[in-house]
């Protein structure tokens, strides 16, 4: 009887620990540099942007979303930093831990060696961040960050 009870408790404890490990999984932040435009050959919307496609079209009035640079970083300590680059632009992300369940990020949008914009954001896990950048030709530079 005692052995059965101990076995029962042990099984539950193992199930609990495996469940907690599964739900505590590290999260990935995806950052993309996008050109939104109405010109150029039609192409499918990048997979990462599919959930935001309607919102981006509504915001900027462009139908075509073209991904020119991206980076994906799995956050473990919450202190990581990374870079998404294109030929002329770079998005530097410096993670500064978590606050209220969101990642605190310092973002710098660089055009070659110039800092066009710097911002500190608290990136929530269910809420993407969209930044409108400079006009490029007949399109618009758009920065997107989201937790995956």
């Amino acid at each position: 009887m005692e052995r059965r009870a101990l076995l029962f408790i042990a099984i539950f404890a193992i199930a609990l620990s495996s469940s907690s490990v599964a739900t505590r999984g590290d999260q990935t932040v995806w950052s993309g540099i996008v050109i939104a435009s109405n010109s150029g050959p039609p192409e499918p919307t990048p997979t990462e942007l599919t959930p935001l496609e309607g919102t981006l079209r509504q915001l900027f009035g462009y139908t075509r979303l073209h991904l020119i640079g991206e980076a994906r970083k799995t956050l473990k300590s919450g202190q990581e930093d990374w870079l998404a680059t294109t030929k002329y632009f770079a998005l530097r992300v410096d993670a500064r831990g978590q606050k209220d369940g969101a990642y605190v990020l310092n973002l710098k949008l660089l055009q070659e060696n110039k800092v066009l914009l710097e911002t500190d954001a608290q990136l929530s896990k269910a809420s993407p961040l969209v930044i409108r950048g400079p006009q490029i030709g007949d399109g618009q530079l758009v920065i997107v960050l989201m937790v995956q």
Partner: protein
Amino acid sequence: MFMKTFEEKWTAWIDDQLTGRELDEFEASLPDKAAAQAEKQSAKQLGSLLREQMAPVLNNAEFFSHQLRERLDREDRRSTARPVSTGWWTIRRLLWSGATALAIFVICAVVVIHNKPSPDQSEYLTQILNYRVDPAVSPNATITMFEKKDEHVTVLWVDGLQSLPPEYAAK
């Protein structure tokens, strides 16, 4: 032999249990033999009357007494024949069952609390803490921040940055 008291001799005389010399001596000791004889007759009549009236009652009493004894005997036999049952819920088993139930409750409670979605995942939008542009690089830049709550999207809208030629859209 020991001497009988007058009351004992009197009772024995009424019950006709005195005989011989003892009977003669007792009757000789009576002050009024006629009155004593009348009293003896009266006592005998009362005795026979009582026996007549009480006989059924006594018979019933014996009957119930017999039944009661038989019933007690039956119950004694039954109680000795019945096996002694100790019951499944011993103190130790009760303790273990209680501990197991408590452990299951705690584990389930922890799992439920652990799997509950945190508020940030359902309610809170991304927040812009601060922003800045270099006035030397973008002197006409203005920044607006707004939220599209229906889509859970936060937007940092920068106007006035220098427009760039199409080749800047290169990968």
